[in-house]
């Protein structure tokens, strides 16, 4: 009985003082549970996440990753990579994005972003014990811009962009271990490679522009 009391205290103390939920925004270098592939790939196919697929994992400091969420578990609102609220860094209390690594990084770090400025992100309005649906979004910010509008432009262009399958996250109670705050339900995903028809349309468009310019 006393043990139960102690565990209850451990779980409940200070809950009231910790209103906003946080999540540790990092997809490598941590002890996730369960063991799974959480890398970002430059293109399909998604491999087993070991040395055999390191070359296909995303590198390049022109790519950036951010976190979006909607309240409640199992939401389908993020299914097409749009919508949701961008999570803010708990230190800067602003939207935060982390860039990917240079291609010279070690194999184990390929496909992971670099957490600079603190990896604890706040989920505004999601309290301890409540759940949210999260989504990681990655895009080429040098080409499309470093704002949500840049991400949407990349998405519209159909290349240099990718987003994870939406996944659930429940804000742990105080006294939980740090790994409960990890992106444990994140799974590997790959950037979108433009369809051949999209590429063909682009080439056709460019050729048309060139033709029109020459006629003038």
């Amino acid at each position, binding site marked *: 009985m006393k043990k139960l009391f102690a565990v209850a205290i451990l779980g409940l*103390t200070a809950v009231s003082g910790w209103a906003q939920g946080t999540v540790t925004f990092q997809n490598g270098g941590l002890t996730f549970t369960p063991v799974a592939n959480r890398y970002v790939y430059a293109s399909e196919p998604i491999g087993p996440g070991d040395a055999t697929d390191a070359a296909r994992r995303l590198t390049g400091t022109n790519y950036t990753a951010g976190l979006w969420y909607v309240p409640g578990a199992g939401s389908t609102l993020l299914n097409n990579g749009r919508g949701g609220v961008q999570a803010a860094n708990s230190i800067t209390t602003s939207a935060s994005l982390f860039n990917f690594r240079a291609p010279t990084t070690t194999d184990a770090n390929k496909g992971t972003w670099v957490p600079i400025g603190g990896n604890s992100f706040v989920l505004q309005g999601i309290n301890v014990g409540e759940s949210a649906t999260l989504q990681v979004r990655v895009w080429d910010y040098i080409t499309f811009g470093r704002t949500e509008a840049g991400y949407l432009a990349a998405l519209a262009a159909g290349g240099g962009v990718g987003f994870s399958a939406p996944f659930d996250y429940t804000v742990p109670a105080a006294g939980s271990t740090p790994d409960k705050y990890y992106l444990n339900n994140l799974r590997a995903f790959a950037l979108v490679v433009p369809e051949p028809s999209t590429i063909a349309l682009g080439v056709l468009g460019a050729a048309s522009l060139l033709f029109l310019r020459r006629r003038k």
Partner: protein
Amino acid sequence: MRTKALLLTAAVGAVGIASSMAQAVYSVNIVGYVNKTLPSGLSMVANQLNATPNNRVTTLIPTPTGALSVSKFVPATGNFVSATFDTDAGWDDPTSMVLNPGQGAFVDNPNPPMPVTFVGEVQLNSTVNIHSGLDIYSSVLPQAGDLNAIGFPAIPSGQQMALFKFNGTAFSNFSYDEEAGGWQPAIPTVAIGESFFIDNGANPTLPWTRNFTVGP
């Protein structure tokens, strides 16, 4: 939290002049005490002195002034084991919990801030093995400061690490990434008597060795 540490006696005893060759024999150790105030609620605590006859929790804090629970993390299970003190029943310590220097635990104090005093000998030579995965650690020596000041080992190139300090309501996250320029958002600092979580990911064991000498 007001923590006062005073190393009382550097017992440098010249036991005797052994011979006409004037070879001196010294008995060198450091004994002292650490006064620590356990705040109301949860905190992460470390014992940094070797007590007599052992470092069992029931030896370190034999008679708390109120109810108390000490919870130690078990990496193999990812759960805690607890020892609880009840003012009527005394200690209930089913696992004979030991808190050696270099280790740490969550302490839950449901009462007003509670002063405790750790008494014992400083461990001059030690190696704490920071194994892969998640665990609670502390400085073996009762020192405060940033990781450099407490002799934390250099993290091998290409490896990431995360450190989590409990601030009373939530964790403060620190991540080490060479490509982020080192520790982010800043190098962690710890107080005397404070413990913290480290996630060493899938990295090999990193030994944290301290050798401290006193006397002539």
